[in-house]
C-alpha cells in the first residue's frame, strides 16, 4: 500500500478523525497554557530583577539551570516535588511553564535594562509609582523582545507536548506511539504534519498579537526584524 493509500484508509475512519480533533485540541491546550503561566512568571521575575538588582544574577542562573534540564526528566520529577501522580497532564503544564519562564527571563531582564534612562526618569517625574511605571511603560516597551521569546517558547512547547505521550498524557504524541507500536506510517506522518501546522498557526497568531500590542512599531524595519527572526 502506498503512503497515500495508507493515509486515505487511516483518515477514512470517522473515529480516527474524531480522535485527531480531540488530540489536536488537547495538544493546543497543553502547549499554550504554559505560555500564559510562563509569561506571567517571567514578568514577575523581571519585576523582581528591576526592584532588587542583587537578585538578577541568581535569576539568570536559575533560569539557565531550569532550561537545561531535559523535558522527560522534568515531567517525571515534578510529581515527586509537588505530589501529583506520575501520569498526570498537570506535570506537563508545569514543566512547560517553567521552560517558558526560563526562556523568557533573560530577554525580559535585558529588555527592561534597554529602556532608556530618560524615559524612566521622566515617568518618575510625572508621578508614576514603580508599579504603574513597570506595567505602563517598561513592560510595553519590552514586548517586542518578549514576543520573540514567546514565539520560540510556543514552537518548543508544541514539540515537547508530544513527549508527554510517554507518560500517557494526551495530545498528538499518541499518534507517534501508535504508529510505532503497529509499524504504521500514517499516524506518524499525520502527527508530524499536524504539529507543524499547529506551530505555524500559533506563530502567525503571536506575530499578529505582537503587532497589536506595539502600534508604535509598525512597519517594522527590515534588518533588526531579520536578526530577531534568526535568533528566534
Amino acid at each position, binding site marked *: 500500500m502506498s503512503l497515500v493509500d*495508507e493515509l486515505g*484508509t*487511516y483518515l477514512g*475512519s470517522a*473515529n*480516527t478523525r474524531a*480522535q485527531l480533533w*480531540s488530540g489536536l*485540541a*488537547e495538544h*493546543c*491546550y*497543553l502547549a*499554550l*497554557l504554559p*505560555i*500564559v503561566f510562563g509569561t506571567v512568571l517571567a514578568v514577575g521575575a523581571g519585576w523582581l530583577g528591576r526592584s532588587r538588582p542583587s537578585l538578577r544574577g541568581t535569576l539568570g542562573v536559575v533560569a539557565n539551570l531550569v532550561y537545561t534540564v531535559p523535558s522527560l526528566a522534568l515531567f517525571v520529577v515534578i510529581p515527586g516535588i509537588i505530589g501529583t*501522580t506520575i*501520569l*498526570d*497532564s*498537570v506535570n506537563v*503544564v508545569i514543566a512547560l511553564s517553567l521552560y517558558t519562564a526560563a526562556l523568557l527571563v533573560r530577554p525580559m531582564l535585558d529588555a527592561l535594562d534597554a529602556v532608556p534612562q530618560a524615559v524612566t526618569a521622566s515617568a518618575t517625574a*510625572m508621578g508614576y509609582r514603580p508599579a504603574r511605571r513597570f*506595567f*505602563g*511603560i517598561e*513592560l*510595553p516597551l519590552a514586548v517586542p523582545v518578549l514576543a520573540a521569546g514567546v514565539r520560540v517558547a510556543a514552537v518548543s512547547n508544541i514539540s515537547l507536548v508530544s513527549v508527554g*505521550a*510517554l*507518560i*500517557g*498524557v*494526551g495530545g498528538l504524541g*499518541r499518534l507517534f*506511539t501508535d504508529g*510505532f*507500536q*503497529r*509499524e*504504521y506510517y*500514517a499516524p506518524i506522518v499525520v502527527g508530524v504534519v499536524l504539529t507543524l501546522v499547529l506551530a505555524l498557526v500559533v506563530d502567525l*497568531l503571536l506575530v499578529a*498579537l505582537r503587532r*497589536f*500590542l506595539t*502600534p508604535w512599531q509598525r512597519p517594522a524595519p527590515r534588518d533588526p526584524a531579520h536578526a530577531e527572526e534568526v535568533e528566534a
Partner: protein
Amino acid sequence: MSGTRRSGAHPPGRLRGIVAVCVAVLMVAACGNPLRGGAEGGDEGRIVIGASDVGESLLLAEIYAGALRSAGADDVTVRPPVGGREVLVQALQDRSVTLAPDYSGNLLRYFDENTGATTSEEVSRELPGALPDGLEVLTASPAQNTDMLVVRGDLAAQGVRSISDLAPRCDRLVFGGPGQWADRWRGQIRKLYGCEFAEIRTTDTGGPVTVEALRSGEVQVANMFSTSASVRANGFVPLDDDRHMFPAQNIVPLAAEGSLSKPERAALDRVSAALTTEKLTELNVEFSERKRNPADIADEFLARLGEG
C-alpha cells in the same frame, strides 16, 4: 498642575495589554480543558478505561467502552495506553482509572507470587481473594492470551520445539522481553526447566523492539503473546510450555471496587462471554496487520454481538 491628568485615563499600552491577556486566555480556553481528572464512575457517571501498552489491551478497552456506552453510561473515555500492570493497578487504586482489561494468571501472580494455580478454573477461584482492597474482577472470558517463548525459525530447525528442548542451551542464549519479565519468571524458569539465560535484556512487551531484536538476532529467545499477529507474520516459532510454567491467562476486566453499576457489569459480562481466543486473535490481526482503528474494530465486534 491642573490638566496634566484626566481622570480615568490609562496609557494606551495598558489597555492593549489587558485585551491581549484576555485574548490569549480565550485562545487557550478555546482549545478545551483536558485536565478534568477523576473517574469515580458509578453514580458520578464518569468512566475512564485504562490500557497497557500492549496493542490488544487498547482493543479490549475500546470493546469495554462500547459495551458500557450501550448499557447507558454516557461519559466513557479510553485513556491513551501507557506502561504495564503496575501503572494500571496504581491508577485503579487512586481511582483515576475505573476499569482496565487484564490477564487472570499474571494478575494472580502479581498479588500472590507463590500461587500454584495454573488452570483457568484454579486461577479464577483464587483471584478474587488475592486482590487487595479497592480492586475487583468481573467474570473472566474464555479467551486467553498467554505468554510464549518464541525463537527464530533457524533455531527451531535445530530441534528446539519446547522450552525443555531450549533448557540445555539457555546459558548460551540472550533473552529479550518486557522489563518485568526477569522479576516474574527468572526464578520459575530455573526451577521448572533448569534454564538460565546468558543475558536477559529489556526490549518491550512483545512490540516492535522485541520483534526487531529477534529478527536481527540480537536476542535469540523472546517473550511474545499467543494472540499476537506478529509471531506468525515474522515466521517466529513458539515453544511448547510442556511443564506449564505460564498459567492460564483469561481476559478479565479489573475494576475499581464498586465503581460500576449492575447493568454496566452485566454488559461487560456478556462481552467477556462472547470473546474467544480465536476471535481475539482475529481482532488482533485487524488491529496490527490491517491497521484499523481500534474503536472501529470494537464497534464492529459489538454490532455483530447485538451490543453495539
